């Protein structure tokens, strides 16, 4: 996988961010276009390509979610593109509750829902960490599927948190916006 290769790393979902940062600086020192401005146009073009790759790779790998999405797509498993079309069955009740609270601009309920969803988000992150370790130990479609499921769930809950936060942060809006479908 190119992004891992760029830093001489084995593809792993669990990464040491301090180590990654160090590698990023080292590679930047070697390839940044500033180091090639007196070189030939071909060398300059190569340095530009290398640095763009290093920067794109660092930006992706340092963020656990972006990193996991990258590994999924490299393995032909796209993360869900349609945001939250289907409500996960176990969330149905909470989602309906939040929707109603948003419609009625019931701030207390929105804040309760927000706390609840934030707790769920932390839960998913915990699951993801374990699933990352599973895939790292035995990379296969079988260990990658749960990562995909968790990512989709995370994205769905993330949207709920965002909508609830928006409603909490903007208390003066007379009519709350309906939940994005």
């Amino acid at each position, binding site marked *: 996988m190119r992004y891992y290769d760029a830093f001489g790393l084995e593809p792993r979902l669990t990464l040491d961010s301090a180590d990654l940062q160090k590698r990023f600086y080292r590679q930047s020192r070697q390839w940044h276009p500033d180091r090639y401005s007196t070189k030939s146009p071909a060398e300059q073009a190569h340095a530009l390509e290398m640095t763009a790759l290093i920067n*794109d790779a660092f*930006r992706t790998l340092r963020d656990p979610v972006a990193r996991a999405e990258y590994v999924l797509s490299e393995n032909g498993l796209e993360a869900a593109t349609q945001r939250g079309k289907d409500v996960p069955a176990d969330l149905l009740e909470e989602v309906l509750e939040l929707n109603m609270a948003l419609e009625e601009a019931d701030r207390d309920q929105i804040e309760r829902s927000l706390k609840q969803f934030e707790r769920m988000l932390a839960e998913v992150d915990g699951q993801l960490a374990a699933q990352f370790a599973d895939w790292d130990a035995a990379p296969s479609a079988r260990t990658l599927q749960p990562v995909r499921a968790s990512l989709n769930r995370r994205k769905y809950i993330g949207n709920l948190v965002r909508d609830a936060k928006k409603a909490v942060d903007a208390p003066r809006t007379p009519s709350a916006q309906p939940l994005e479908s």
Partner: protein
Amino acid sequence: MFEIDFGKPKNDIIVGIDLGTTNSLVAAMGPTAPFIIPGPDSDPLVPSVVTALANGDFLVGNPARRALVTHPKLTVYSVKRLMGRGVADVRDELKLFPFRIAEGSDSVIQLALGNRTFTPPVISGIILRRLKQNAEEHLGEPVTKAVITVPAYFNDAQRQATKDAGRIAGLEVLRLVNEPTAAALAYGLDKRKQGVVAVYDLGGGTFDISILRLQDGIFEVMATVGDTHLGGDDIDNLLLRIALEDLASEWGEDVSTNQEAVQLLRRAVIEAKHTLSALPVAHIVFEYKERRYARELTRDVFNRLIMPVVDRTLAPCRQAMADAKVTAAEIDEVVLVGGSTRIPLVREAVERLFRAKPHTELNPDQVVALGAAVQASILSGAEEEKLLLDVTPLSLGIETMGGLVSKIIHRNSTIPASATETFTTAVEGQTNVLIHVVQGEREMVKDCRSLARFDLKGIDPMPAGIPRIEVRFLIDANGILQVSAREQRTGKEQTVEVKPSYGLTDEQVEAMILESIEKAEEDFAERQVREMRVEADNVMHAVEKAKQSDTWYELPQAERETVNRALNELMVVYHGDSHELIRAKIETLDEVTRPLAESIMNAAVNTALKGTKI
């Protein structure tokens, strides 16, 4: 004493240039530290003012600033505010600045100065050319390469316009560097092994805040936020408006349409503003047509007036800290840049926000140019330890269905950065696809800045949805977008035609440079012609003189005709502009008059011999 010449190949010097809204500076790297190169008038600052005189010459800098009062209609200042912008963008500025926009300013503003028009990059190019000349005079060698600074929050079009200005001035722009980042370089903050630095840059027309992480010589920008229309100019305009109203009520006369009076009053309020940075009281004094207007302005009143301007800088600061994921407590050092940071109220606000005493050791007017010289030195390979990792200030997106923006490179991404998107056709046999690229943070295209439309051409006709065109968007180290495309299955490189929304096309820039190159060559050619005419004058004079002699009439008729013909031919080309043709005809004339010259010589010798006999 003897000197040793190590025969070291001389590296081309790279200068650092701060092309500012109010003032511009050029700097170079010395043996130990960067230094500012002063102009011939020994002023380190070249005011960013240009006067286009009726005879075709330009005044730049201090002379042009003086001409603001005497030739307001031929003089332009603060042109940086117009760089990379469209007419609709600057409608508000036009009320406050005496810019005269000419007809036909569609994607590029055309400024009317007298009966000539100029684009902002050309005006900036004229300023850059002056800085280049100052540097050449001072350093005693040609200067062709430069690092130019831009506000960190400049968008693609504004950056491109700055690069164009460099090309127009005959400078190879090796890098555009963000002004706050340059300032951090100038302060040599890398001496501290690691830490977090905030750079607060309030200049004449722009505001930037950047948060950087320092680690063993690497300057990594974590976030940058700004406002390209916020600066000292806003304070000047505010004071000017109040003074104009006050003056109108006192004199019973509105002078706001009188350019000369407005410029004098503007100068008076700016002077008062400067005084208030050092003293608690200043006076706005304005004398015009034997009338006098004077007002006392205390710092307290001044502070109250400018508070809204200063407050506008605080929200971007908080945003930058949030983007960089740092709190005020985690910021180790604060650097102040730009002339407007001399204002005590600004310093207080910064100190309160970041809870740190800001650095002010370096002259805030000069620190950016000095930093540009450090970056120039990095590019020349002289500074192995230092490296700048900068970011793009604005998200890059493409227009999708329903006028929505799909972001492909997010703001604060380290540059160079790239993204790849795949496009296809919507109808059968479609041979081109138009991609609209925008910059900005909003979700709707209409709320973002249109950068350009890229036309992917020459797609092989296929059923709808079959072609897969992979388009690569690359933001280079200057923060400027490059786009390339290939058809995925054939691997065929697609032609991408760029239609910039604002700014000059490559051809237009090329034409502007060619114009100046042509002029230079024309000058050289002209000199050659002049020199050749002098030679022709000598030859013709000699022949005419020979024709007065007896020997001429002793020549055979045919020979005389040959000489006359050659003489006529030389006279014909004499007023032409080809020195080669003149030379050729001189040679022909020389050739055909040789017998005549010899005869004359012989005759002279004979006469001389005869003479001795007498």
